[in-house]
């Protein structure tokens, strides 16, 4: 209730005049007339609603027992009316500007608060989406490398030329068609699928992939001629097989394929014999 923060009326009128770009006298007149009009409205019991500011209204106060502040004698205060002002949110927010950043502190911390936090759920959703995306990417990367336990010819999308039967180009040549595998070729041409590394070793310089699991369709593979047969191999054939297994093991190791160990083991086993 100290007077040091009060604004004199003529200062206030000058501020209003500067804001509304009118003369101080006009502003002063206007403020007086405004107060008069508002008082008249309140005297007939009406409300005054001002946008983003507040609402003036009158309320009824019942008759009540009171006390004379000077003598302390009991007194009956008659029923009467009084003026109220209800500030709206915009005004409250403006007036509370220096303390707006302060928040209500609970005395007992709420352990279930995370359930009502939107940010938490959004974060969870994003994390789940990220995991799903990662899973999809991982499967699409791993599938072409490891899905085929048997070496398979890959099918280039452009060359879907139908080659219904693998034509025997020559006695020692074989044209690869989509779906052919070294395993299958070795079984068909040599009689034993386990002899496929010798075909790989023979054609290795021409192969574009250096991957025993991948051969392109359309290329012609040279089938090495065995001096003996698969069931009764000669020493040269065995050497050829050992070299083939060794080569396959090396290429598998370069690719990081765990099959390298088994091929390496077989090659060393045969070379010792």
């Amino acid at each position, binding site marked *: 209730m100290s007077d040091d*923060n*009060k*604004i004199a*009326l003529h200062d*206030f009128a000058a*501020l*209003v005049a500067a*804001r*509304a770009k*009118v003369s101080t006298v006009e*502003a002063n*007149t*206007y*403020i*007086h*007339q*405004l*107060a*008069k*009009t*508002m*008082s008249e*409205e*309140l*005297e*007939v*019991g*009406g409300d*005054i*609603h*001002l946008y*983003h*500011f*507040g609402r*003036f209204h009158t309320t*009824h106060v019942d008759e009540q027992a009171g006390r004379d502040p000077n003598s302390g004698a009991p007194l009956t205060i*008659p*029923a*009467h*009316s*009084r*003026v109220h*002002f209800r*500030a709206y949110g915009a*005004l*409250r927010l*403006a*007036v*509370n*500007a*220096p*303390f707006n950043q*302060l*928040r*209500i*502190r*609970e*005395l*007992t911390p*709420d352990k279930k608060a995370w359930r009502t936090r939107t940010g938490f759920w959004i974060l969870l959703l994003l994390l789940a989406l990220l995991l799903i995306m990662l899973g999809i990417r991982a499967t699409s990367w791993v599938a072409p490398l490891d899905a085929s336990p048997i070496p398979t010819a890959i099918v280039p999308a452009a060359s879907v030329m139908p080659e219904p039967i693998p034509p025997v180009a020559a006695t020692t040549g074989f044209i690869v068609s989509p779906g052919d595998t070294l395993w299958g070729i070795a079984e068909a041409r040599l009689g034993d699928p386990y002899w496929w590394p010798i075909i790989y070793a023979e054609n290795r310089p021409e192969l574009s992939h250096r991957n025993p699991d991948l051969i392109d369709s359309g290329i012609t593979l040279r089938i090495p001629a065995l001096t003996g047969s698969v069931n009764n191999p000669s020493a040269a054939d065995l050497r050829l097989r050992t070299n083939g297994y060794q080569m396959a093991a090396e290429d598998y190791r370069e690719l990081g394929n765990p099959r390298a160990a088994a091929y390496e083991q077989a090659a060393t086993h045969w070379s010792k014999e």
Partner: protein
Amino acid sequence: MDQSELVEQVALELRISHAASQRLLKATLREIRDLMRVGHAVTIPHLGTFDTATYEEHRGYRPVSNDFAIFPKRRVPVFRTGTLLREEVYDIEADEAGAPT
């Protein structure tokens, strides 16, 4: 009474245009708001005083959490009715003249 009605009535009594009345009313309200924002009190003659009150940090009941909480320091607008207006409004409901304030 709505704001537009107030603007209209004041414009009529001062014989100024509605636009000028509207502009002056807005300027008045905004000036009051801005002065209260920096902690000043504004007295409008006959009507009353717009002032601010500061509440210190206090403990109180919070119905939302059904518990007690620490409420932060806060400044609120208050309006104190002028004596003239208070006495005029005092017995608007009474048939006979009421007791003096």
